[in-house]
């Protein structure tokens, strides 16, 4: 009985929390996110209430986690790829409108010079108007007063006004207060010597256009580009996010300052992933073969030593290499200079930077291939090698005629996975070169060592324009590559469920 109460109580509490979140998101017009949590909550309740779905209760949290943090972001990213979501078009139309209508300016037409008096009970601001003077009640000016009423007055307070030096000292307190007149106007500090009325910057009309009260220019909302636009083409910032169809994709294909870098990076990404798989596999297979050999002693020692690069956290070893390869203080260049008298520019020459990346990634990746192939080699019957030895085959013959044909089939899915992993090896590039050296003539941040993933990351998060739309479009293209690879993999590995 108590268990039942606990169970339903917990469920009810969770649902209540979720509903609060959904309503709050909905109220802020975040429809997509509100829908997401609504679907999530509804399916949770359905699964946990329905008797027949007992088994689904066990998998629900994991599936929901994947849905929320893998599948939803994936779909959302594809969606962003068709919009102009970026630093200049970050908000929704309603938020932009709200933002613009909230703006105010100080009108010059209603401006008061003022004097600040220190009466016994506190400070008094006395405003001198053209027709009517105004005065505040005694103020503390300690930052606690935000809105203060002012009343008509005809006589200045007794004594001398405070000097400019005292006013400068009280400046931040003075600029923090708004003075409210009896007829509903709002005055705030306009300069050290004057207060002026605050007026709304924009007025909204029934047809959706807005007029700037200061300049009398009218702007119409342009839902094609996501900006308020005036008759002579001037736009207001910020803009809002609109659907722009395939424009981001067209830009990648047609804009030469994006197309050039994009294809260079694409080719490098492919060659990097292939080269990494080939190098790590060759090295790993060679070492695995040596470790499998009966004649070698001390296998445990060798194995542990050879595995070390895999055991050190990658973010540390990559940074270690970044320091060792440093052109001026790095130990690798010190050694090279001592031996051959050369100091290669590892970080500013594109070819050398790419070489360095391949060296580092081979160092990082060969132990994994070694471990994989060791497992597979153990499964090859010994007598096959004896038979080939009888026929006089050497190690090279053995490798190409016995070993490789036998292990290639189980190895293939793992090689594809490794290819896909390196195709998207963001951490290596981000920590080692950050994409440097830069590609000349690119309008977005693009480097000769950038992979497609680090390229999208830089477009989205490191460029001042933060062009999320373009980044998402490129990410969508990578999704297609990864999706195709993982489908092939599923076929090849013949997963049984």
């Amino acid at each position, binding site marked *: 009985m108590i268990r039942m109460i606990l169970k339903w109580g917990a469920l009810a509490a969770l649902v209540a929390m979720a509903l609060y979140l959904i309503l709050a998101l909905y109220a802020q017009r975040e429809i997509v996110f509100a829908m997401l949590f609504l679907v999530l909550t509804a399916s949770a309740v359905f699964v946990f209430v329905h008797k027949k779905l007992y088994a689904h209760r066990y998998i629900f949290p*994991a599936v929901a986690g994947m849905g929320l943090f*893998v599948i939803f972001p994936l779909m959302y990213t594809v969606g*962003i790829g068709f919009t102009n979501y970026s630093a200049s078009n970050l908000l929704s139309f309603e938020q932009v409108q709200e933002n613009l209508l909230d703006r105010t300016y100080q009108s010059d037409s209603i401006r008061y010079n003022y004097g600040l008096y220190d009466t016994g009970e506190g400070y008094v601001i006395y405003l001198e108007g053209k027709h009517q003077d105004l005065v505040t009640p005694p103020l503390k000016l300690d930052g606690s007063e935000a809105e203060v009423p002012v009343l008509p007055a005809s006589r200045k307070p007794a004594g001398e006004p405070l000097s400019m030096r005292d006013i400068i000292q009280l400046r931040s307190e003075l600029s923090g207060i708004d003075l409210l007149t009896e007829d509903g106007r709002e005055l705030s500090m306009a300069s050290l010597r004057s207060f002026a009325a605050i007026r709304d910057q924009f007025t909204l009309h029934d047809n959706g256009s807005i007029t700037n009260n200061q300049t009398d220019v009218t702007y119409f909302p342009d839902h094609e580009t996501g900006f308020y636009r005036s008759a002579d083409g001037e736009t207001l910032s910020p803009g809002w996010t609109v659907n722009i169809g395939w424009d981001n994709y067209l830009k990648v294909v047609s804009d030469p300052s994006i197309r050039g870098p994009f294809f260079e990076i694409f080719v490098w990404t492919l060659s990097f992933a292939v080269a990494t798989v080939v190098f790590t596999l060759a090295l790993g297979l060679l070492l695995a073969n040596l470790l499998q050999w009966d004649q*070698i002693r001390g296998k445990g020692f060798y194995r542990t030593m050879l595995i070390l690069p895999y055991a050190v956290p990658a973010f540390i070893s990559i940074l270690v290499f970044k320091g060792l390869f440093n052109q001026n203080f790095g130990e690798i260049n010190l050694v090279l200079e001592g031996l051959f008298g050369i100091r290669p520019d590892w970080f500013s020459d594109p070819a050398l930077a790419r070489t360095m990346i391949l060296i580092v990634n081979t160092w990082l990746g060969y132990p*994994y291939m070694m471990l994989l192939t060791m497992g597979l080699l153990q499964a090859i019957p010994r007598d096959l090698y004896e038979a080939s030895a009888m026929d006089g085959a050497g190690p090279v013959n053995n490798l190409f005629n016995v070993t490789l044909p036998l292990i290639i089939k189980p190895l293939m899915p793992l090689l594809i996975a490794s290819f896909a992993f390196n195709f998207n090896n963001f951490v290596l590039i981000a920590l080692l070169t950050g994409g440097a050296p830069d590609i000349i003539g690119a309008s977005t941040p693009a480097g000769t060592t950038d992979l497609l993933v680090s390229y999208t990351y830089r477009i989205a998060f490191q460029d001042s324009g933060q062009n999320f739309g373009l980044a998402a479009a490129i990410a969508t293209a990578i999704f297609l590559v990864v999706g195709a690879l993982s489908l092939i993999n599923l076929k090849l590995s013949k997963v049984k469920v």
Partner: protein
Amino acid sequence: MAMVQPRSTKYRVLASHLGMLGFIAIILFPLLMVISISFRSGNFASGSLLPENPSLEHWYLALGIPYTGEDGTITQPPFPVLLWLWNSIKIAVVSAVLILALSTTSAYAFARMRFAGKGFVLKSMLIFQMFPPVLSLVALYALFDKIGNHVSWLGLNTHGAVIVASLGGMALHIWTIKGYFDSIDRSLEEAAIVDGATTWQAFRYILLPLSVPILVVVFILAFIMTIMEYPMASVLLVDTDKLTLAVGAQQYLYEQNYLWGDFAAAAVLSGLPITLIFLYCQKWIVGGLTAGGVKG
């Protein structure tokens, strides 16, 4: 032992030993170098592998203790390394516990129960596991930004967000545990259920105690993967005192502020425990990895 041995075997064995030792020397060079550098004084010192004038300067700073030089100058620690390590461990332990709990229960259902859509869900998990989160960072950023407006401990710049985001990577662990459950005979549980135990009790009191080894492996694997996670933490965390080690460590090597020696000590200090844990558990971890995919 093979019966047929060519005459040249002796030389080939010798050559293999020499080759492997030489290779290991090259492989270990960066690691030994960084240990050596952590004991050199100053951030630009060069020298041999064994430092001539060993100094504990960088180690003091890595441990958060101000260092007083011989000439009386006091150097303050540049970054809160221990705090970063603590952040990393905190995040990794909490998410490893959550991942373990959730993936064990799901793996149980996948291994023992029949239900609609089982094969489909399992296969989709394998496919989606290959999509790197770094590609949907914009969406994840927006997601946590929106949630954070209403649930402050899950917003941007919180550890809660990083922990929750790591739950997206559970498929690999579910597959690992499911594989282990599949290898355990189900007759014991069936007997218990015949005797009146509920499904949950059979799972909790019979299967779980039998599966402790794989649970330990998955816990350690999830722990290490979360500690090493870089892209999501780098976008979600902002403040210096909130960073994880993986995100913070790179700040040592900025062009303008190049602290090579301080980095070396911090790297050894924080990398060593993780390396030792990994070496200790490598046998089980490798089994899990070859079954599921690639180290993240």
